[in-house]
């Protein structure tokens, strides 16, 4: 039982990360019906940017621990900057790679999305090299024990930050004017523009928010795993995409649910079957969902499409 609970916690932590990335996929799909395959790489870029910002702040991978409010302040600064930068990059990607293709056949922007994905990977490889790079572990990492179950600060951080982000996003979409413009544009782009909503600006903000969340996930992932690599986003992106499809692509709550489920499935597979089989299981879920229930778990039954 303790092992099960331990794996459940691992799965939730990992799943929170997938959920954050899945939100970006699902928001963009909801509003422009594009699978933004460059999204996973924006997530990796988030990790890379965090490392660069930490280096600027004088924090390197040497293993120095910065405790107390100083550490918290640095973490906050890094995550906010990385999120903003990723957001801007997401807006630029939309502006230059997707906007002109918005009314083109679906295949065209899909191909440019894959192109942008390779472009970002190439830039990251040339920037930090082709091998794994370490992410400075500058925060202390005490472990809390509950019975036989251990949670360390990093896991707690991942779960808390991802849930906070989701709650904030949910609030944002339902209660702010931009969120309402996003919902209207997602439901009928042309009607929204004729109601006076600036659809281009709204779509740009959607990319900004989705990419900023990927940047946050990039920070969390770096803190959690301690390393990153230029190809990381490829697989993490595909798994987050699976999460988005599992929950119902275009559906915000579905992306969160799907993310946590995929994380838990991964952890349980690793524990009770084998580490080697996690990808097989996860991507089998993708295939099964697409074949048996393409609208996903929450799908179109809920009016959450953004």
């Amino acid at each position, binding site marked *: 039982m303790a092992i099960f609970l331990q794996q459940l916690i691992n799965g939730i932590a990992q799943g929170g990360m997938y959920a954050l990335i899945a939100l970006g996929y699902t928001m963009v799909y909801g509003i422009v019906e594009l699978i933004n395959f460059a999204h996973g790489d924006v997530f990796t870029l988030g990790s890379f940017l965090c490392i660069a910002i930490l280096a600027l702040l004088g924090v390197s991978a040497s293993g120095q621990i910065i405790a107390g409010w100083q550490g918290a302040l640095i973490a906050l600064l890094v995550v906010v900057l990385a999120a903003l930068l990723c957001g801007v990059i997401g807006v630029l990607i939309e502006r230059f790679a997707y906007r002109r293709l918005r009314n083109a056949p679906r295949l065209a922007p899909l191909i440019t999305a894959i192109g942008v994905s390779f472009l970002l990977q190439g830039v990251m490889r040339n920037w930090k090299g082709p091998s794994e790079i370490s992410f400075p572990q500058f925060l202390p990492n005490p472990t809390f024990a509950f019975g036989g179950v251990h949670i360390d600060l990093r896991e707690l951080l991942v779960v808390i930050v991802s849930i906070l982000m989701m709650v904030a996003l949910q609030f944002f979409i339902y209660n702010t004017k931009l969120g309402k413009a996003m919902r209207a544009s997602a439901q009928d782009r042309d009607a929204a523009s004729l109601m006076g*909503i600036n659809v281009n600006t709204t779509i740009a903000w959607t990319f900004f928010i989705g990419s900023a969340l990927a940047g946050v996930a990039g920070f969390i992932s770096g803190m959690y795993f301690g390393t990153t690599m230029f190809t990381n986003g490829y697989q993490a992106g595909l798994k987050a995409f699976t999460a988005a499809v599992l929950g119902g692509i275009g559906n915000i709550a579905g992306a969160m649910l799907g993310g946590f489920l995929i994380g838990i499935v991964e952890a349980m597979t690793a524990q009770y079957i084998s580490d080697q089989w996690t990808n097989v299981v996860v991507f089998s879920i993708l295939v099964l969902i697409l074949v048996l229930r393409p609208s996903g778990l929450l799908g179109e039954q809920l009016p959450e499409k953004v």
Partner: protein
Amino acid sequence: MSAPLLAIEGLTKRFGGLTAVKELTMHVEAGSISSLIGPNGAGKSTVFNVITGIYVPTAGDIKLGGASIVGRKPHQVAAAGIMRTFQNIRLFAFMTVLENVMVGEQTRMHATPLDSALRTPRAQREERAVSERALELLDFVGLSAQSEQWARNLPYGMQRRLEIARALAPNPRVLLLDEPAAGANPVEKRELMALVRAIRDRGVTVVLIEHDMKLVMGISDRVTVLDYGEKISEGDPQSVRRDPRVIEAYLGKGA
């Protein structure tokens, strides 16, 4: 005669080799009800799409209150004071009836996300003003009782009226109605005629595309007839009805 509120001057729209609208000139007086009629494929909806900025005209000019609106984006045309409904209803299906009417105004509120989060007095005041106005409009079109239902669950005729309420929300100068009576039964058509007149009485100039001749002839101050993208007749309902070119376009030669 005063200057027209909406002036379409020599408007041409070509799609490749197809000329959908050819050198159309049409003047709409403030406070009037004008109709644009013609057989299917005559280019009526294209005219609406060009006015609202969905299409850029190939040639010609469109002026609202003397200022050209050609080249503006749809949301800018809306901001200038032209709203519309759609031939095939395009509501926000997953919003409530009230939300549909409010959403356009809400996106123009001044409240920042922080205001919304903290529910500051300013945000609450704005929200209340927008919702009061939306409720008044729902009452005006007769949908008060349905305000909390999802738009997609409304019967067809109510969806049409909801589209009209939504289009009236920003208090437009001109309202374009694209086949508002499509699929309506005789009772609904009579109600619609009364509604259109009431909209005009609110000070909104109405232009409608319509197939139902009885409705068009009953409420229009002025009728413009298109056939194959060209204006073949224009005038008050009585003279248009008797115009041999109109009869020919609708019924064919020899009728």
